[in-house]
């Protein structure tokens, strides 16, 4: 019957976002009763190495919410072409249009709201699906009622939407929450963006939200103006459903700078609107030709993929624990435990698109073979690019593609550099003072050289169309002699030794040291 369209990213937009959003997702799912109903969340511009916002809070969502939730992930690279035109990191019009384009065509209605709303049917036995199914074609709004922060934060249980809706019905009366704020037409009520129900067919006819609105604010009013023109009237559902907004004014959201807030031009986008249609974006709204990843929380979850990958690549441990050491004299010992390290490496890559091409430059054959198995079992379809400059590696896995570094580097979306000892056996004890053999030295030298070249030439060697820097993952680069090399080139955080892994993008150093490093990397000095 209806598709609810929401957007956001994995950040901290306003106060206690995670709780507000969980309450809202669960409450919206609770008032759905039609098998075609869906919640579409566009996760816009979350960094590639982070999970999407709903994935990050999945444990607080009900089974019903997980079942109806479809997540569309817009990658930073897909946002890049708009980056210079806006100060915002998440764009409402683009997000909502991306969802609309990909919404269930069986649904008659599209409902635009936000991840801090609870929709409460006035008849307890009526679902929102039933309500929308019964009303005639039109464009519907409801007034938004505010819910003090104390109430939702202190009294709501994220995973009890039924209880929360019951509490709301009680509080509405006891605390006089229901105040209708009328507004200038075509905005029938204040804060109209928290409930705008339009026919899906109408939204396609008027070409969705206006994607020129890049500065934040008033996207809802623009839509109201255009739909009010298109339909001739703005209808109300105040007799059927109340909408409550989890107030979050303790901390200003990123797009709220008080009087200094930058926003879309009200005259252009509201008061001088002259047509419901946007012919300039008729063929492009919602990015129809762009492949947008869809993620579900009720199937093939990240956790399932992660465990599948590791289960395929590793047998369970047979001992309660294994040891390593930070003793100073072991600083030059590059032995490490692949079986312990691999989960941390997989963790670094899991959130990337499945089509990612990863360049793997390694010393240890065991690392390559285990990683390849895990990569495939995690559902990645992109190739593992192994340069032929890395010798004595097993490259027989079907995911592995070999070639000259200079050729493969132009195909890679992501880099993994592993600094281990080529001669280390799987069952050797680690960090007990193992010396490097000539073969180890030779392998490490090759990896270090390729690493310096890849990092220093990263910007010049990106695949066609790619504009953002690629991420480098360093394996076995903590508290050993490769830590300085890796962090000279890569802006990585300080991580615990136990994880063995550092990651980041190439540093943009304008200092003399940076220039020298770049020169050395480029020319293999």
């Amino acid at each position, binding site marked *: 019957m209806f598709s609810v369209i929401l957007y956001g990213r994995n950040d901290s937009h306003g106060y206690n976002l995670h709780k507000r959003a969980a309450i809202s997702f669960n409450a919206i799912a609770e008032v759905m009763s039609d098998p075609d109903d869906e919640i579409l969340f566009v996760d816009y511009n979350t960094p590639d190495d982070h999970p999407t916002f709903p994935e990050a809070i999945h444990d607080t969502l009900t089974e019903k919410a997980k079942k109806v939730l479809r997540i569309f992930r817009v990658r930073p690279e897909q946002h890049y072409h708009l980056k210079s035109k806006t100060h915002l990191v998440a764009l409402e019009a683009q997000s909502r249009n991306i969802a609309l384009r990909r919404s269930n065509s069986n649904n008659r209605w599209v409902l635009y709201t936000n991840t801090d709303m609870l929709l409460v049917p006035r008849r307890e036995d009526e679902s929102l699906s039933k309500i929308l199914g019964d009303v005639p074609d039109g464009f519907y709004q409801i007034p938004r009622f505010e819910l003090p922060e104390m109430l939702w934060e202190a009294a709501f249980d994220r995973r009890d939407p039924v209880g929360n809706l019951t509490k709301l019905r009680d509080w509405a009366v006891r605390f006089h929450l229901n105040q209708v704020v009328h507004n200038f037409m*075509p905005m029938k009520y204040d804060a109209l963006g928290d409930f705008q129900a339009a026919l899906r067919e109408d939204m396609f006819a008027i070409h969705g939200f206006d994607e020129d609105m890049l500065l934040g604010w008033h996207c809802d009013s623009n839509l109201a103006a255009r739909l009010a023109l298109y339909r001739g009237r703005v209808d109300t559902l105040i007799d059927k459903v109340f909408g409550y907004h989890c107030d979050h004014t303790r901390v200003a959201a990123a797009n709220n700078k008080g009087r200094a807030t930058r926003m879309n031009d009200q005259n252009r986008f509201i008061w001088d609107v002259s047509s419901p249609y946007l012919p300039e974006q008729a063929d492009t709204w919602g990015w129809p030709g762009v492949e947008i990843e869809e993620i579900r929380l009720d199937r093939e979850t990240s956790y399932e993929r992660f465990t599948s990958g590791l289960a395929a690549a590793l047998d369970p441990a047979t001992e309660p624990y294994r040891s390593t050491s930070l003793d100073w004299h072991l600083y030059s010992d590059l032995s490490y435990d692949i079986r312990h390290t691999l989960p941390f490496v997989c963790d670094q890559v899991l959130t990337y698109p499945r089509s990612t091409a990863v360049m793997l430059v390694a010393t240890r054959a065991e690392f390559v073979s285990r990683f390849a198995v895990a990569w495939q079992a995690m559902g990645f379809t992109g190739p593992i690019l192994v340069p032929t400059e890395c010798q004595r590696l097993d490259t027989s896995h079907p995911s592995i593609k070999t070639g000259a570094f200079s050729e493969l580097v132009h195909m890679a979306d992501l880099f993994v550099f592993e600094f281990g000892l080529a001669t280390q056996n799987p069952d050797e004890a680690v960090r007990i003072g193992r010396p490097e053999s000539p073969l180890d030295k030779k392998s490490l030298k090759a990896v270090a050289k390729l690493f310096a070249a890849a990092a220093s030439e990263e910007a010049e060697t990106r695949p066609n169309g790619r504009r953002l820097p690629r991420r480098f993952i360093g394996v076995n680069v903590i508290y050993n002699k490769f830590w300085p090399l890796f962090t000279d080139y890569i802006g990585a955080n300080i991580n615990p030794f136990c994880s063995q892994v550092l990651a980041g993008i190439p540093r943009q150093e304008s200092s003399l040291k940076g220039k020298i490093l770049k020169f050395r990397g480029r020319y293999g000095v």
Partner: protein
Amino acid sequence: MSGEGIVAQLLRTLREFRLRGGNSAIQDELAHNHRHGLFLRARALARSGAFDQAAPLFSQAVDMDPTFDEAWEGWGEALDALGERALALEKYEAARQLRAGLRPGAPDRHFVLRQRGHFTAEILAYDTVVRSLAKNTLPYLARGNAYLATGQAEKALADYERALRLKPGVPEITALKGEALAMLGRYSEALQAFDTALAARPNDAEILGGRAMVRIALGLIEEADADWRRQFGLLQGRPSACACVALRMADYGAALPQLEQALAKEPSDLYWLLYRLTAQRRLGQAVDATNIPVVDAWPGPLLALHAGRTSAAEALKLANTDSRRAEATFQLGILVSVQDHNAARSHWQEIVDRSGPSQIEYAAARHELARPQSSSAL
């Protein structure tokens, strides 16, 4: 009367005075004791919190015009605020049923001309906005649209012209000015407005449709067809709209497949069924009269005519508006066209003489009349 009572009485009087004196539109309407006047007053009272006074006025407005959906809704809102939940729901439901029963205008026409309803609340709302935002176009445009959708073309034209004075040359507003002029029968001026709008928006299907309608009214059939053919191409994927365009050109071969699709999508819309019968008969195809449904509501009588269940006289008698009479007359022409082409032409001529160019039947009749006498099947 206690001091508190006197103050309350004074406040009430002041509020009444403000409501009556502060809004000339309300005052004008009240002077005419019009149902819209009642609605406006009721609405103002409701906005000021006097739901108990507003409810009976909404009720009176509904008594005067039971199809006044906005008054039903306002009544519902007032009762809801007064805690009369069950009664309120009845009124809301009545408003929704009225709206659900309105068939939108032809899907190939400008979106404003597809809208149906009273739009009194919209006009009132935009009256207020215009007073606050006199230099912006949207309030004039929206109010003009409400006027146009309710057939008040003079007022619509005035609002569009104001909007164009603020933002000269906006093609969408110029096109609406063309629609208002066409509704007023000022076809030459309308044509000029559409030409201007189309110069800026050459691929706007709605503007093309508007110009085609004006062209056919001016007897420029070939030029009208050129616009409709382009419109037909631009509307691909919207079968009901395409069907209407093809029917206006009396191009039944093009209309029939679109009508089949429109019927599949909106099986309860009897017009698609009626027009499919029209196209089939005119194309000389066999018609299964036994499966034509029996429906009392319009255009049911025209379906009965096709099924042979009612007479021409009876169908015409049930056609209680000008547009329905044109629809009935057109179908009479279709039904007799095989046996007696002259009789058919006489029906179609009657439509051209008596109905307006915005009707599908008007344009179709003009095309039928323009065809050579010997051409009976198309």
